[in-house]
């Protein structure tokens, strides 16, 4: 049973989050281990596993970004996330400017930053953060709508567009975190989505 099916929802990116929450609470009341405390051990374990699936499904679908990531996996027939590459590679569209940023980063790591170097790094980070926010809006908005509306023949292209955007986001997250680390600050607003 996939996460959409857990809640009896169609496999679409547009979701009524309030309705999702209502269904989640109703399912949680059935499955939560608190209510199976007196049951035999085998039943308790089964309830716990059911609750784990319901919780994971809720958390995945509630957030538009993890929802999109999950949908891509589902469409590609993968039940788990792939291991291996924990650090995403730079998408082709970002290569040129990333080269510049990586250079600045290497410099920052080599020695202490002067005032101007710091300001430049901070400006780059802020620009990337802005871009990150825009890309999220695109995934939640245009790309999600395109996927939901796509018919048979249009689906592969819609999926690829979604996948590319997600890869860009993953890459931006690591670079923003690196820049924030180099600046000795916390990356705000991106760590939450690290997966």
């Amino acid at each position, binding site marked *: 049973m996939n996460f959409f099916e857990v809640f009896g929802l169609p496999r679409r990116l547009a979701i009524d989050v309030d309705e999702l929450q209502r269904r989640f609470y109703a399912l*949680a*009341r059935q499955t939560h281990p608190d209510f199976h405390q007196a049951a035999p051990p085998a039943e308790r374990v089964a309830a716990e596993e059911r609750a784990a699936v319901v*919780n994971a499904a809720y*958390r995945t679908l509630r957030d538009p970004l993890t929802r999109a990531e999950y949908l891509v996996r589902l469409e590609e027939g993968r039940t788990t996330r792939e291991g291996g590459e*924990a650090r995403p590679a730079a998408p082709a569209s970002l290569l040129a400017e990333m080269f510049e940023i990586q250079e600045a980063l290497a410099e920052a790591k080599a020695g202490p930053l002067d005032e101007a170097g710091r300001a430049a790094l901070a400006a780059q980070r802020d620009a990337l953060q802005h871009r990150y926010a825009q890309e999220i809006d695109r995934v939640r908005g245009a790309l999600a709508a395109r996927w939901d509306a796509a018919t048979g023949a249009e689906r592969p292209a819609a999926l690829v567009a979604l996948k590319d955007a997600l890869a860009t986001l993953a890459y931006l997250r690591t670079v923003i975190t690196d820049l924030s680390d180099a600046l000795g600050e916390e990356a705000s607003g991106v760590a939450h989505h690290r997966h």
Partner: protein
Amino acid sequence: MSRIIGIDLGTTNSLVAYVDEASGLPRVIPDDEGRALLPSIVAFTPDGLVVGEAARRQLARRPADTVYSIKRLMGRGYDDVKDELRYLPFRVVPADGTVKLVAGGREVTPPEVSAAVLKALKLRAERHFGEPIEKAVITVPAYFNDAQRQATRDAGRIAGLDVVRIVNEPTAASLAYGLQRLQQGVIAVYDLGGGTFDVSILRVDDGVFEVLATNGDTHLGGDDFDRVLVQWLLDDIQTRHHAELARDGLDLAGDAEILQELRLAAEAAKIRLSSEERTTLTLPLGGFTYRRQLTRGDVDRLIEPLVTRTLGPCRRALADAGLQAADIDQVVLVGGSTRVPLVRRRVEELFGKTPHSQLNPDEVVALGAAVQAYILAGGITSMLLLDVTPLSLGIESLGGIVNVLISRNTTIPTSAREMFTTSVDGQTLVDLHVVQGERELVKDCRSLGRFELRIDPMPAGMPKIEVTFLIDANGILQVQAKEQRSGKAASIEVKPTYGLSEAEVERMIEESFTYAEADVETRLLIEARNEADTVLTHVTRALRQGATLVSAEERVAIETALTALRAARDGVDRDRIHEATTAVNRATERLAEAMMDAALKGALGSTRAAELLKERP
């Protein structure tokens, strides 16, 4: 289902509570003298273990054998805590990924010390109900990691308790509030205790308490307030009394007894300043007395950086919940340190609303634990708590980078699966390293365990190793690994590389019966000796300062009474100790009066000795 009690195992104080079936409300169980709080202090004396108030009185007398704030060491490695060891008067040594302490001439683990506290609460509950109690819900800081949770569960087992649930303190508090005044909406629970800080953001909706995000600092609390205050006082004493210190040959920083007395005096002054604007701290030292006026402003300046440190976690929790401060409908204060006015002010500024503290901040967590216990026993079916895991969990992958399987703030129980493969041809051993934390690199996270999986030799990239994480409702992790391609799937459950093995826990359960808490008789004897010791110290000091104020005969009478008390104190006859103590008190009545007079006339350098005699019971 049998009765389940709720226990708040705190850094400074611990409590036990239950839900009264008639009223449906949670109640704290007091001790025989009506005290709800049990100081989380364990003294290792030659006569056995002493716990609680009686142990508290040993703090300054036997600093090296009286263990307090043990919660700060639970589930910790030596490197995690070595910076704060200089504040602790008992010896802490590294032990196999964790620490042990040396007290009462033997090595003990932090879970064993906590078990002594739990056992005292278990006994308290058993006396209250007149029946054996075997099951408990125990609270932990929401931001406790896996190792700290496991250590807490081990402590429960050593105390003879089946820990049916580990529940997070701020969430427990929200249950206690929720039961009594069922609000809807989003609440922030700000929980600043003796040693730990937590903040949790919850959505309460028709009996469901859903934690949206939690954050915190497991090494930030009232203890830290005391420490900065003690440091400041030490500097002040050195500056103002260097002549006297040199004269009396006192090394304050190196004297565990004086440091402990100073810590207790600082703590008491801090508490007074929560309700008063100014107070005087008085501490007899060698041949002089240190007296210091303290204002609330003085202490506020010292603790300000610490209070500010709590705001970062609050902002991160809000960000993780996807909310702004203005979205919070109610703020609830939990933990004794939220009585500090500066803390209240900062919380109010951050969230822009007056926080609630109708329920006693010392008791609310225990009350909530009792509510959760009652839910588990089937007594309440309308309330459901959906808690989260505070820290991300992952596996080490190539290059020492963490591959996160479960992100922080995921509702528990939860599970996650991921496929891994090999990087070398013919590899037969796969090393899996499980870590917890928010940093990208393994070296910056907490290592939870390593385990090896044996597989058939295959070309690199061929094996399909499926790793499954399951976090149960206690927030405790189980990991399984399977190689799928070979068909004969191997499966392994992670045994943590830190903490106690099953065998060790069993041994400690056995030992705890033979090394049980001192029985009532012994405890009373120890208390009588304590009192005798206190009187001996104070009278000896007073006699030194006021020797010229009484006649030679009176001096001899006092000396004789003191000698008798010393002899009685070393014996085992409790009544004799009490009698000898009373005799000393009687013999010094004149001396006390004379010193009082002299003090009023300013004839003595210090008024403290007279006050000591006067204050004595």
